[in-house]
């Protein structure tokens, strides 16, 4: 059964855009942004480097060096734009695809790869970067972000939390509960939804009858849709939402309208559920090409700059690959580490027994 289009769905919602796919700068009355040439070049560099790390990770998975990888291809602007809007004091709560935000928070990409290689389940210190661990269960982290934001409130701190999730996650109970909590407690949190149109194989219309950003109004806080492939707009809109949160004006839902240009993960085959033409159409809205066009047209960068960034990206790719392959496998004792903070008799006993069992093989002793 196909439901008829709900009332209001035919009117295209407003999309905040400051840079067109052709690289033309657009003014916006509420969300304008002043960026120096250096800042634009820096954003371009971020976008290129993040994409390069992602491509390298996909290759490493194909070569059997990673168990899995969730590619961010196509979502670089949403992640770099929002990531660069954060201050050091803000705390980010990612899904498992926020490699671009991780980059903005100075998390070593090899740490991300380590998780997908299977050397640990995370492994970076969230407090060192104010970048929480990747959360795999869909939507769980939205509640963590709101709780953290409630802590910020109680501390009287000048900070906000931002939480990332996808279009599929908006169907989760936890995400809806987090909207309620954030609203009722007026928590300093920004909900950053990357609507990449697909939840593995399920298109957006399996999750919602209304544009996602409109969900916010039912919960009592503002929702806004931004061109997720426009790094300027993502930066401007997130900056404003974070400033609102820090100044006690409560949560905002940002829907970054973008597209997952790759598969859901390396285990997925999108040709089974979406047509090639869709990808071709979105390629014309590529988040990196439009910044390059803008830099070129306005003579803010020359070929030498682009070559330099490409060379830096290649070097980064090589470096990430080398260090990924050098990651040591954890020893068997790591099984038992950090399960509990305080000593735990059962885990301690099992560690001792299992290591003794293994030692029996090494010494060839009779068991």
């Amino acid at each position, binding site marked *: 059964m196909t439901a008829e289009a709900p009332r209001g769905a035919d009117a295209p919602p407003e999309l905040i855009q400051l840079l067109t796919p052709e690289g033309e700068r657009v003014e916006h009355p509420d969300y304008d942004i002043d960026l120096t040439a250096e800042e634009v070049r820096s954003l371009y560099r971020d976008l290129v480097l993040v994409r390069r790390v992602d491509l390298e990770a996909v290759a490493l998975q194909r070569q059997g060096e990673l168990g899995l990888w969730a590619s961010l291809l196509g979502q670089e602007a949403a992640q770099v734009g929002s990531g660069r809007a954060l201050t050091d004091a803000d*705390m980010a709560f990612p899904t498992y695809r926020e490699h671009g935000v991780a980059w903005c928070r100075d998390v070593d990409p090899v740490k991300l790869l380590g998780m997908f290689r299977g050397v*640990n*389940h*995370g*492994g*970076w*210190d*969230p*407090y*060192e970067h104010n970048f*929480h*661990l990747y*959360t795999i*269960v869909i939507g*769980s982290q*939205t*509640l*963590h*972000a*709101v*709780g*953290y*934001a*409630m*802590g*910020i409130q*109680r*501390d009287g701190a000048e900070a906000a*939390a931002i939480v990332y999730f996808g279009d599929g996650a908006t169907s989760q*109970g*936890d995400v809806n*509960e*987090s909207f*309620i*909590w954030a609203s*009722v407690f007026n928590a300093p949190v920004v909900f950053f939804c990357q609507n990449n149109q697909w939840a593995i194989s399920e298109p957006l219309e399996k999750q919602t009858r209304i544009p996602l950003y409109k969900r916010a109004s039912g919960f009592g806080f503002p929702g806004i849709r931004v061109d997720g492939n426009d790094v300027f707009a993502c930066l401007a809109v997130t900056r404003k939402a974070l400033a609102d949160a820090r100044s006690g004006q409560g949560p905002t839902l940002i829907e970054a309208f973008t597209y997952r240009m790759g598969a859901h993960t390396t285990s997925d085959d999108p040709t089974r559920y979406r047509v090639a033409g869709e990808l071709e159409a979105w390629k014309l809205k590529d988040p990196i090409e439009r910044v390059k066009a803008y830099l070129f047209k306005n003579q803010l960068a020359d070929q030498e700059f682009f070559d330099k960034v490409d060379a830096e990206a290649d070097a980064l790719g090589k470096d990430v690959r080398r260090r990924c392959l050098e990651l040591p496998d954890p020893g068997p004792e790591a099984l038992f*580490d*950090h*399960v*509990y*903070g*305080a000593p*735990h*008799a*059962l*885990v301690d006993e099992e560690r001792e027994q299992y290591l003794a069992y293994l030692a029996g093989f090494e010494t060839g002793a009779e068991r």
Partner: protein
Amino acid sequence: MTTLTLGKAINEGLRRAMEADAKVIVMGEDVGKLGGVFRVTDGLQKDFGEDRVIDTPLAESGIIGTAIGLALRGYRPVCEIQFDGFVFPAADQIITQLAKMPLRSLGAIKLPVVVRIPCGGGIGAVEHHSESPEAYFTHTAGLRVMACSNPADAYTMIQDAVRCDDPIIFFEPKRRYWDKAEVDLAAPGLPLDKARTVRQGADVTLLAYGPMVKTCLAAATAAEEDGRNAEVIDLRSLNPLDMGVITESVRRTGRCVVVHEAPVFSGFGAELAARVSEHCFYNLEAPVLRVGGFSTPYPPSRLEEHYLPDLDRVLDAIDRVFAY
């Protein structure tokens, strides 16, 4: 010494914990003005304010999920789940996040979250208000699981639980909330992961926790008339388990009966029976027997006396371990 009900003892313990550490926060449904449906948090919001005693929206996953976030920010939340049967909407946050996040961070994150759950039956309640879900949580690595049985322990255990840096599921025997006992408010309790021998005996060891400790003590007194001297151990901590106290006792008595309200099949008693059999095999005169709920959902209250282990069913099991 002060005479306190078990519920009031937890209340006093929470009060001490909140006085000792400004990061301690109490949160849950109706915990503020009402003081919780069992009044365990009575008066705390009045004295510590709405920022520290938080009446939350009515959503259990939200309670645990936001408590995790508060803990990440350095707070020590004590969450109340109103009834045992309502914990399941929060099961995902407890099992996939609360229990595993410290490991995920390789120890960088500590989650000192206490999840208080009134548990067990015997109060004539409607469905979902009388369950014993402990085995779901003892099976989850990363959680500590505690069960208090009496006012004095409840008072110290809740404070120790709040001080512990690991997440803790803290079961409170709801039908014993009104039981009174003398509590020394200045005395330290046993360490959190230690079992307590609450009655010495030489012939059979009864292992129990939470509401069944009292039942076992009554059964032990009754068994004395049959000339059987039962030792009763209150486990207090279900994960980790204080095997030292258990094995020392069973090796001495040679017989063991495990008692809990939860269904016997795949219940926590299965773990106890297996461990006792393994550790005390050569001392056992009889197999370890279990007394507990049936393999049925918790019944309507007019049937609960048939479902819940009582003095007679414990005595029957004692008879059976002596029949071998």
